């Protein structure tokens, strides 16, 4: 329920104070990055800068602002986190997304389920960027249907022996640690026989292979696990409770992710581009076809921002973000593809060139063209997100399921 305070679209006095604090800290701590061209660096060239920036944020309490302090976070508000992100975005800084799976998923899960020794040993290094973490959930036949995990874990004295294949492992090739869902008992229905661990990615038998994407880059990996031994002490949650632990992790992810938009094609990119070109000799922004499209996207993109603000207010008053957070990605992913195509189209044949374009704003759009199909899939396809919203927000009935209540070993597919 909302507080009994007036709706206010501007910073409250407390927020303003926090913003000033953030601004001052950023001013004092970002000089060393200001003139570095991170865009043209390789991952390995950039990573040391990223770690350094992350360590600075951790030392100053900005590394995990909204995460509860008992989970290792800053215990701040979601609004503070947004304020920090808004201000941080104004500076030239190295990419710090390497740490987001660790901070958003691994850290709260570890804080909830790991023993004290591991927490003390690992969480500070996670927070400071010394360690990179990944998550090993998806498999070739367990994407939308996470319950379909086949990677097998068999108990062997104090260890578990794990065999199988994981896929879509973001930053797997850089990771020190990972969290993983395995099948420990195939004789019970699919959601009941899973067990959750964390593992050292340097363990024997872990083979990380980059997946080449359609844009030629490799952000994801396949991870082959061959007789990988995981100590039972690295089990998170009870044997057979892997599904529940995974849901908890995903809920943490949703909380962490709910504050940000994809930002592939950032606000202003489209407007800037359209301001810079002419059509048939007149400014593109005078053209009524262009204006109509622009208005459509404004309604979507700006609407998502307002939805986010509403969620933040709700979050600030203690409510947990529900599946309606899926809406943001659903709308933005499609809009990104549409905006991208539209911008490219207005330039005729010049719209296909990544280099050599006279239009400064465009290479970003062109690169986004090859990324946008991926964002409509990663983290839940449009169709899965619609199912989620239909069932969890609108309360509509589930699809008929033929794979429930039967032993996993009997499920088709």
């Amino acid at each position, binding site marked *: *329920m*909302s*507080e*009994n*305070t*007036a*709706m*206010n*679209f*501007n*910073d*409250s006095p407390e*927020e303003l104070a926090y913003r000033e604090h953030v601004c001052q800290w950023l001013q004092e701590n970002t000089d060393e990055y200001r003139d570095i061209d991170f865009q043209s660096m390789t991952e390995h060239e950039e990573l040391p800068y990223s770690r350094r920036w992350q360590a600075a944020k951790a030392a100053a309490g900005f590394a995990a602002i909204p995460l509860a302090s008992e989970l290792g976070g800053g215990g701040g508000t979601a*609004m503070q986190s947004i304020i920090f992100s808004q201000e941080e975005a104004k500076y030239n800084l190295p990419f710090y997304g390497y740490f987001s799976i660790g901070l958003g998923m691994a850290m709260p899960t570890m804080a909830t389920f790991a023993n004290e020794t591991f927490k003390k040993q690992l969480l500070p290094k996670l927070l400071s960027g010394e360690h990179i973490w990944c998550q090993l959930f998806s498999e070739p036949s367990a994407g939308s249907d996470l319950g379909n995990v086949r990677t097998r874990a068999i108990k062997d004295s104090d260890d578990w022996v794990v065999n199988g294949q994981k896929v879509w492992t973001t930053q797997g090739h850089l990771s020190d640690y990972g969290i993983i869902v395995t099948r420990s008992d195939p004789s019970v229905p699919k959601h009941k026989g899973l067990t959750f661990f964390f593992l050292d990615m340097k363990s024997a038998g872990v083979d990380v292979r980059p997946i080449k994407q359609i844009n030629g880059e490799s952000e994801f990996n396949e991870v082959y696990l061959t007789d990988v031994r995981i100590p039972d002490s690295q089990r998170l949650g009870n044997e057979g409770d892997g599904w529940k632990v995974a849901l908890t992790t995903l809920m943490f992810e949703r909380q962490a992710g709910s504050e940000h938009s994809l930002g592939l094609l950032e*606000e*202003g990119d*489209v*407007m*800037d581009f359209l301001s810079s070109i002419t059509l048939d000799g007149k400014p593109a*922004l005078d053209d*009524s076809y262009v*204006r*109509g499209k*622009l*208005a*459509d*996207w*404004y*309604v*979507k*993109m*700006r*609407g*998502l921002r*307002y*939805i986010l*603000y*509403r969620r*933040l*207010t*709700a979050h600030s*008053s203690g409510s947990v973000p529900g599946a*309606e957070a899926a*809406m943001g990605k*659903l*709308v933005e992913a499609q809009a990104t593809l549409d905006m991208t195509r539209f911008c490219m189209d207005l330039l005729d044949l010049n719209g296909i060139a990544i280099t050599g374009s006279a239009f400064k704003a465009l290479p970003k759009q062109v690169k986004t063209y090859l990324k946008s199909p991926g964002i409509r899939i990663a983290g839940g396809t449009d*169709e899965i997100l*619609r*199912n989620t*919203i*239909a*069932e969890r*927000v*609108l*309360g*509509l*009935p*589930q*699809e*008929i399921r033929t794979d429930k209540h039967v032993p996993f070993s009997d499920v088709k597919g």
Partner: protein
Amino acid sequence: MNFEFSADQHELQNQLSRQLADAFPIARVMRVLEGDLAERKLMWREFVELGYLGMAIPENYGGVGYGYLELCLMAQEIGRLGIPVPMLSNIYLAAEAIVQFGSEQQKQNWLPKILSGEVNATFAWSEDDNGQAPDVINCQLDSGLLSGVKTPVPDTDMADIAVVVANGRNGELALCLVNLKQQGVSLQPLEVIDEASPHASISFDGAMAEVLGGVAVDLDRLFNRAAVLLAFDQVGGAQQCLEMSKSYAAERFVFGRAIASYQALKHKMVDMYVFNELALSHGYFAAWALENDADELAQAAAGVRLAAIKAYEYAAAETIQIHGGVGYTWEYPCHIYFKRSRIAAASLGGKRRWQNKLVSSLIESGATI
């Protein structure tokens, strides 16, 4: 930053929701659709008597002295129930025009009468001109006499007076108050797509008219303010369409399953939900801009108007689709919303006009999408 109505405001909304649902069940709305305009007048009288009409108007003019945030929430509840009361023409436009542009004396003279239901006002801006330019007005005001034709003018079954958009002698836009019950004013009722929303052509032939405030008025500002309020009506209607869809789809079985379990309909309802949430969230921002008379009002109003048109038109058409055959019958309430959604989309000017307004305001303010 607090992007939520207050607890008190939500409580007021709940109370309104209950009161209105009790007083104006769908059967009464259907009676109006059947052509029973006496029922409409009765509903309006009862609505006035509930005492919320002057929600955003100061008490010294007969208002309730809440604010525009509360008025938005009331609009949402009226829209949800599809109640055929003349809020847009009478309150969001005519009364608001008097508040914004009227002299102190005009406010004291007219507002209490309007808010008590003693006098019903309407707002006449549209003309039957092929020019389709927003500012091309042919009605002429000269030495206190008005001549020209306004069409369609809404709610002419009830209106006693009209606030009319006209050209002053020096070519500036002027608003004037005209008593419709005088010689020199003649009404020609029109058949429009919504039986519950009577419209007419009005011819003025040297009718006596009282100029509102100074001669040059900022009509855009008035339309922006009304657009925010109308958008809440639209969102309320769109939300009701989703609710009706969910209920019907849960109860209707085809091929042995509730139709709500089919992905085609589930995903359609998700799309309704998404459009509704986008519109509602634009509404939050616009309501704040309206209440605070913020610089962002023009942009916020255009944004919420476009979002609300989209949401309502989609929801109203698709709830018929989800209902299947019965959705297309007079007996089911879907058409109340299908008709209202179109009237609302047209009432302050169509989509293309607001797209242009939005982009112009983006360019002016240097804002980005």
